[in-house]
């Protein structure tokens, strides 16, 4: 789950050179959109699960046109503060509009358990794993095969050259944004049946996603994915075997250690910001 959120963040970073601290809120809003579709409108799970990313794509585009276009040329400090401000606004608006009571979206798969030789897993978790892998594979193909995808890659490598060659930078940036939002929302739709939905759920996630993006090699999507898996794994292991209370601390310390050992991230090449 971390991986999908981090991948979206990394995409934006690498391609659009943008730090988006409001990314966690994409996840949160995606979760609420899913809840709305599934619980309030009564749509079946797959429809609601596709609705959420669709809604978030629209939101992502709106966000890009309003806020992002203004801060894109600025320094990353400005980007950070501006997106942080957006995050504050979104989280608190969510509290006002949606209320503090956590929402639950149990689905058929989240209650049924699969028992394989003593290891018990709810079907939904398998869905999360399967869907994530499918989505990553699709993402890879998109970036490697389609024109837009290749344009995105080119943009991340050399912005000026792209403008010269005639790539529509604005359009590609918008697509990247939309994709990023959709990824976060899809993650939310997959994961929400397992957990609670509440307005604060995005904030911690943004921090971890940011850490994963940097540790994986700034802007390199596969690196971010790998790093997120590393964080998730460390947390789970530390939580089970060392100490549950300190697991977040341990995960972060591991991240820092990785960065110290390889300052450009696990797989990264420096993007030189």
């Amino acid at each position: 789950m971390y991986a999908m959120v981090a991948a979206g963040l990394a995409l934006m970073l690498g391609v659009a050179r943008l730090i988006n601290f409001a990314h966690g809120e994409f996840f949160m809003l995606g979760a609420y959109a899913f809840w709305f579709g599934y619980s309030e409108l009564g749509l079946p799970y797959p429809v609601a699960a596709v609705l959420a990313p669709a809604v978030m794509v629209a939101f992502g585009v709106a966000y890009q046109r309003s806020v992002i276009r203004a801060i894109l040329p600025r320094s990353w400090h400005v980007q950070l503060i501006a997106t942080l401000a957006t995050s504050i606004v979104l989280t608190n608006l969510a509290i006002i509009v949606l209320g503090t009571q956590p929402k639950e979206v149990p689905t058929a798969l989240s209650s049924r358990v699969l028992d394989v030789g003593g290891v018990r897993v709810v079907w939904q978790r398998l869905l999360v794993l399967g869907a994530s892998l499918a989505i990553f594979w699709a993402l890879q193909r998109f970036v490697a095969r389609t024109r837009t995808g290749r344009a995105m890659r080119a943009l991340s490598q050399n912005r000026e050259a792209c403008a010269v060659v005639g790539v529509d930078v604005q359009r590609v940036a918008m697509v990247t944004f939309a994709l990023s939002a959709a990824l976060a929302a899809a993650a939310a739709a997959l994961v929400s049946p397992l957990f609670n939905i509440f307005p604060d759920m995005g904030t911690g996630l943004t921090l971890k996603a940011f850490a994963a993006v940097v540790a994986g090699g700034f802007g390199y999507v596969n690196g971010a994915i790998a790093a997120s898996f590393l964080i998730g794994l460390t947390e789970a292991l530390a939580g089970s075997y060392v100490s549950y209370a300190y697991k977040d601390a341990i995960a972060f310390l591991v991240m820092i250690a990785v960065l110290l050992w390889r300052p450009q991230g696990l797989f990264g090449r420096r993007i030189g910001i």
Partner: protein
Amino acid sequence: MRLALTLATLLLLAFSAGAQAPPIKIGFASAMSGPAAITGEGVRWGATLAVEEINAKGGVMGRKIEAFFADNKAQPGEAVSAVRKLADVDQVDVIIGQTHSGACLGAMPVVKEIGVPMVIEACSHPKIRELSGKGGNEWTFRVALDDEIMAYTFARYMARQHVKTSSILAMNNDFGRGAATAYDAAFKKAGVKLLSTEFFDPGQPDYRPVLTRLKRANPETILAVILASDGAPFMRQFRELGLTQRIFSRGSLGSAEFLHQVRDNPKIGDGVVEASYWITGLDPEWDRKWTERYKIPPRIHGSLAAITLRWAVVPALEIALKKHGKADRQTIRAALEEVDVKDSPLGPIKFDANHQAWINMILIEMNDGQLRILEKLPTSPALLN
């Protein structure tokens, strides 16, 4: 002549209008923003409903109540600001609240300095009892039971049920930590062996690592200090992993709120025994009004604030008004010491030398989507021996 009469009548009317007594101002402080905002929201709703009700019946001996709210963000620093705002800016005569132990502890020195009585509706830190009352902070009073009192009572009950071993799973905040410390000592006294203690961060969604650790420790029972909002994912994952321990809970796991969260499969909560001092059903009239107004089952903190208002503060106001003809901070404080209510929904409310009210503890069992009161246990200082 007629002019003089009209003037006189007008003057008389003006005087009698001005002679209408000013409202009694009551301040409510809780976590209105931040991660614990759900508790402050409950307090605000509960207080609003209760105050409206009282005013609709004519107020307290003819005096209306005006409610003011302040945000303590569940932090001691903000609690100080909240108290000062209520006392200095809003000029309230009495404060109800704080809800969170850190905030209570931060607020206590300030209410003493300013000289405004504060009646605590939910903070569970035992230190509050030690610090309040005669010889200590004479301005703070508490209606809720603290962890020490509840732990000793609950542990003794568990021992009576022939429980031999247990593990504690608690929220990693002031509530959970305080409870864990109390139960550690209480288990020892009651003869229950404590195998392990685990803490989790409220609001985080993944309980599998901690459940794995609990599985490994293999206790007979789990003492869970957890709220309904976390309880729902916790119980789902508990069942998912196929754990079978008996769960004894202290928080709001066994509650209407929890059942609302798991309404797709209420049997998830079967067998949980909850120790509390409040539950829906103690005051059906209140439950009905709340549900009608807010469309969800009554929330614990809101209901506690309302009960504190109606059965502790209002009696004190009445005593103050009868005895002294006025209800200001000093008279309310003195009056609180004389409050002696036998039959509030929580049980008897009478503040002892430490300004603690020894209300009833209730044991609730959750089964098949229903909550059933198992036992009502009166409490008293003798329990702590």
